[in-house]
Every structure is written in C-alpha cells, then in structure tokens.
C-alpha cells in the first residue's frame, strides 16, 4: 500500500488541475457553432429603414441558406465577391444558376412578406424587389447597403 502512495499523489495533483479546468468549460472552449438557418430566428425590432432592409436581407439569407443546405454565414461570406461566390458553389457542389435563382427568389419573397405586413413602405418595396431581380448575387448586399444609405431613414 505504501508503494502506491507516490502514484496516488501524482494522480491527485493531476486531478487537482484537470477537474477544475473541465468544470470551468475546458474541452468546449472552441468557436461557437453557427445556428441552423432552417430553425426560426428571433430578430430585434427594426428601427428605421436601414434596419428594416437589414432584417429583410437576413430573413432572405436564412431562407436561401436553408434551401441550399448551407449556413447563413457561409452564404453571406460567399456574397462578398464573384470569386467568393464561385468558390462557394464549387465547394458545396451547388449549380451556380440554381444558387443565383434561389437568392433572387428568397429576397423577393422576403420583400413581399415585409410589404404585406407593413414593415416595408409600399413606395420602397418595388425598388428593393427590382434590385433583387436584376443585381448579381455578389453585389446584392452592397446594393442594399447603398440603397439604405440613399433612402431617408
């Protein structure tokens, strides 16, 4: 029994460090997993036109990401340039035309819903819808950004 004491002391010292580390979250300190785009997401109340357009864009992005089977974040990162969009479709095995169509459909649907529930003024909705239909996907976010900047808040 006495011969086991040094081993027990060594194991005890190790446990005295590892147990508190694990209790404090050790082993799960890693990048936060992104949310499922198909699950409902609660958005804060939109104030002003800029936030309304942002909310429409985020709703659309969630919907399209769900349809394409990717995360919302991957899709947004793909929309920053044509190269990024090409890489995104290639890496995820998605047909480029299908992806472009999904994005346009998702945005138009989000605009229609926002117009119906009164969050997007009827005068502005056609402008956003026109942008959704005519602008390439990788220029959409920037176009919406400029549109929000241009219109009165």
């Amino acid at each position, binding site marked *: 029994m006495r011969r086991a004491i040094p081993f027990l002391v060594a194991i005890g010292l190790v446990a005295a460090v590892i147990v508190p580390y694990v209790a404090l979250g050790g082993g799960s300190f890693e990048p936060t997993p992104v949310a499922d785009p198909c699950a409902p997401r609660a958005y804060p109340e939109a104030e002003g036109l800029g936030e309304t357009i*942002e909310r429409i864009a985020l709703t659309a992005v969630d919907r399209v990401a769900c349809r394409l089977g990717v995360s*919302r974040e991957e899709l947004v990162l793909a929309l920053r340039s044509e190269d990024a969009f090409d890489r995104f479709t290639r890496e995820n095995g998605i047909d480029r035309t299908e992806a472009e169509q999904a994005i346009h459909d998702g945005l138009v649907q989000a605009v229609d819903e926002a117009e119906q529930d009164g969050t997007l003024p009827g005068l502005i909705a056609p402008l956003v819808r026109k942008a959704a239909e005519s602008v390439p996907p990788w220029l959409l976010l920037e176009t919406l950004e400029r549109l929000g900047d241009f219109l009165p808040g």
Partner: protein
Amino acid sequence: MRQRSALLGLGVGLALADSSIVTLALPRILGDFDVSITSVAWVLTSFNLVLALVAVPAAYASRRKPREAFGAGVLVFAVASLACGLAPSFGVLVGARCVQAVGAGLLVTAALDLLSQVDGSDEAALRVWVAAGVAGAALGPAAGGILTQLLGWESIFLAQVPVALVLLLALRGVEARPVKAPAGRPSVPANLALLLVAGGLVAALFLVVLLLVDGWGLSPAAAGIVVTVMPLTAIGVGRFRPRSLGVVYGCVCGVILIAGGLAALALMPRAGWWWTLPPQILVGAGLGLTVGGLTELAVRGRPDQVVHGGWTLAARHAGVVLGLLLLAPVLTSALDENRDEAIRAGAAIVLDSRIPPLAKLGVAQDVLAEVDRANDAGELPDVKRALAGRADDDEDWTSLVSGLQDQLDRAVTSAFSGPFLLAAALALGALIPLAFVRRRPG
C-alpha cells in the same frame, strides 16, 4: 575544481539550449527569409535530428580523446553559431545549424567524461550533466524570446560565441586517461522511455510558447518569463526529490505528471497566460523526476557512461524530432480547420451585432481582409487592427470587437488541444518501456 565543473555544466546547458532556443524567433526568421511555415521549422528540426544522429559516434570519439573532443566541439559550435548569426540565406542558416549540432554532440558527450575527472566520481558527474542539460533545454525558449525581442533573432547565436570560447578554460589541467573497457549494449527500455518523454515534452517546450506569442499575442520576452515556471519547478523538484521515492517509481510518477500537465494544457477553459501555469508546474515536476531518473537508469552501472550518455542524448533528441514531426502537421491542420470555423462564427457575430446595419458589410470585409493578410504572413489575425479607425468607444462596437476576439481565442486555443493531447499520449507511452527497465547496481 568547482569552477571547471560549473564551466562544463554551462557548456552542456548552452549546447542543449540550442535544441529549443529559436522557438520564439521562428516568426521573425520566417519574415526575414520569406520562407514557408513548414520550411522554417527546419531551423529547429535540423539541429535536433543531426544531434540525435551524431550523439553516439561523438560519444565514442569523446571516450578516446575527451580533451580534444571537447575543444573541437567548442570551436565547431562557436564557428557554426557565428555562421548562424550572420547567415545571408535560409539555406546557410539550416546548414550552420547542422554543423552546430555536430559541435554540440562532441562538446556535450566529452563534457560528461571531463566532469567525471573534475568531480572525482561518475555519479556526481552524471548529476551535473543531466541537470545542466535539462535546465538548458527548458530555459532555452525563455532566453531566446528575451534576446529576440531585445536584440533580434541573430543575437541568439552571436551571444553564444564568446560564451562558448570561455568554455575552453575548462580544459586547463585535464589529463588524458586510458580508454575504458568496451561500452556494452545500451539500455533499450530506458532510452525508449526517454525518447517518448522527450517527444511529449516538445509540446510543453515549443507549443506553449507558440500559443502564448502567436496565439494570444504576448511579447516574446513576456512569454519567455511565463515559461520559466516549468524549468524552475523541474530544478526544484529534481533537487528536493525524496530519496525514498526510488528512481523507477520517480520516473513513473514523473510520466504521470507530464502526461497530466499536457492533458491540462489541452483542456484550458479560457485564453490567458495564467491558465498555462498549473499545467506547466505539473510538467515541470514531471520533468524534474523523469529525465534525470531515466538517464540514470540508462547510464548508471554500465562500463562506460560517456557512450551510454551519448545514447541518452540520441534518444532525447530523436524524441524531439519525433514530437516535431508528429505535432506540427496536426497543429497546422487544426489551425486551418478552426480558422474556417472562426470566420463563420465571426460572421454570425457581425450579422447579429447592434452596430449600424449599413456598416456590417464593411466590417465583414475588413475582418476577412485581415484574415487573408495574417494567413499570408503566417500570423494570426488581429481583430483590433482590422477594425482600427471605427467608432471603438461605442458600446456596440466594443462588444463586437470583444466577441470577435473571443471567437479568435477559442479557435486558436482549441487548435492546440489536439497536439497537446497527442503529446500527453506520447509521454504516457513511456510507461510501457518503463515496465521493462531493470535497475543496475551503481
């Protein structure tokens, strides 16, 4: 006598510090020579590989003519250190590191023989030799970090030249001795255990400093100070180890402590240098109990301790090479994978943040540009730099920056978890050969 013993110990420590001393200088070397991350690791690997290969032949040369071997080793080491410090190209630097390792092999193995003469007993010589080697290897990253920050990476090598030349004073009054009886076969279990422990210790000696400097943004000097906890603990435990513990039992306890400390490094709950301290104390205690004990088991009671000392040197540095070759690709691949996860998590934080909606796209683009820049430079992204010039005194912006930094910390810290766990398993594997170790009478 004591002065000569101290000089010989200094020589062993200096030469073996070179196995880890450039760890913190690697990012600067990478920048100066414009080489890839994989290539720059050869500044470390080449020294350890050549030392592992030459240690035994150098020991045979040292047992025949220790005086000459020590003198030649010191001169080769000094000239090669000078060449490292003045290297005009990366190829010359790696070549000079290989030559430096040849000098180190001769110097370190001959020092063991000379210590026996100076200290008057093989046992006392072995104690000084092991302690100096452990202290050198463990203090190497700290010394290298401080020198790199204060004077540049070249100073690491240039500073060694005068110190090495002073070592020649240790040769005064040393006489030639007759060649001893045949050395006999090496202790395979003790050397194998030493190899596995050294492989695991790579994570503690190299990866901790990389995490502190490149991962969490500490300065090389500050990181150098943080990592002195481990060698100080090792020296303390080695000095005050209870005699009643026994060498084999001490080694087993040491392996448990090293593996436990490495596992604790893999399970850090937050980013911050203070979280490395308790695991470093565990590893340091294990280092103090194990390396000296295993060297003693491999050398004591054998007819020629210089040759068997050479075998332990070869085993230790082969272990370092094994650790570097195993852990580096695991870390690189985990960093790549976690970078993509962190970008997605960062994008989620930007999209969900309360900053003005029209600024979000610009922020996302700035952060991604910083990620690309850092990736090309072999660095980790600097969130504050990416968002510099924006309204950083606003609460929403502060919250965004801290959220992004948190994701980066999570990505980096968890990327190191796999290599730390692998290193823990490697060190724990030393228990298998330890079960076959039989102690010889001293």
